């Protein structure tokens, strides 16, 4: 089964594929701006309170953050392999690689859940009765942490759903131009890139 047929307003398939991809890239640029506001807030907080920022970040579990970075990087590799497999007309391998990428995404979310549970117990989750912050900066940092990782986790969830639906989509797996799988992979790589910058902003910042 080939890719989606040529449709209006396009006159040829290569142009249609290029437009599909460009549309995704432009959407991803808007995603960068969404997370950009959060990173700008972290920058302002760190410039205003350099020492307190490091103290607050020290509460996060560096080991779990590092493990999750490795999980997402490996997951991205599988997404790239899925695209390569679809192009090489190996639809079964494309499906397997997508499932592996989605599985690592689930592991990422599980680790995040363990982290959130730990932070709840330690009184670091804003808005809960247990919340107990030693300083205003610490509270602001934890607010920022939950907003940033929460919105990111929503994107991870969306990416997992997209990759699972692509893996179940026979037309997508048999498309030698990998239009759908390629676009899903692009989205997943951007979710990875955002985490690559959240890692030094939240976790590495806490190493005194």
């Amino acid at each position, binding site marked *: 089964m080939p890719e989606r047929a040529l449709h209006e307003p396009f006159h040829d398939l290569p142009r249609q594929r*290029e437009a599909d*991809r*460009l549309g995704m*890239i*432009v959407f*991803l*640029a*808007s*995603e*960068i*701006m969404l997370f*950009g*506001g959060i*990173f*700008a807030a972290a*920058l*302002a907080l*760190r*410039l*205003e309170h350099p020492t307190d920022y490091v103290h607050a970040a020290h509460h996060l579990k*560096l080991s779990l953050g*590092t493990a999750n*970075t*490795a999980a997402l*990087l*490996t997951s*991205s*590799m599988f*997404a*790239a*392999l899925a*695209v*390569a497999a679809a*192009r*090489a007309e190996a639809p079964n391998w494309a499906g397997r690689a997508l499932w592996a990428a989605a599985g690592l995404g689930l592991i990422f979310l599980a680790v995040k859940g363990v982290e959130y549970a730990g932070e709840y117990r330690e009184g670091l989750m804003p808005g809960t009765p247990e919340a107990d912050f030693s300083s205003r900066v610490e509270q602001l940092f934890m607010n920022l942490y939950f907003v940033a990782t929460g919105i990111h986790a929503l994107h991870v969830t969306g990416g997992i759903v997209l990759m699972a639906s692509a893996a179940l989509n026979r037309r997508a797996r048999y498309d030698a131009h990998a239009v759908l799988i390629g676009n899903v*992979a*692009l989205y997943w*790589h*951007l979710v*990875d*890139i955002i985490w*690559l*910058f959240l*890692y*030094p902003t939240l976790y*590495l*910042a806490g*190493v005194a």
Partner: protein
Amino acid sequence: MSRGVARILAVWAALMMLLALTLAAAFLPLGAAKPWVAYAIATAKAALVLWFFMELRREDGIMRLAAVAGFVWLAILFVLTAADYVTRVWM
């Protein structure tokens, strides 16, 4: 194993090495340079993902331009934000 697959695996190995490097660098006594080193390594990792995994190496100018547009606007946001906070002590 095709060349494409080998390239993807090599990029993954490079990404994992950069992750180990940034983790080790966080424990070195680098002083004020520490965040700069961490963000430089994060940028290197992001560049590898963009160039190889997101296949900007295969794309033409318009696609690359669209891909970096978000980062360019972000740089403006960061520079102007920092310009405010960094210079407040001069007042």
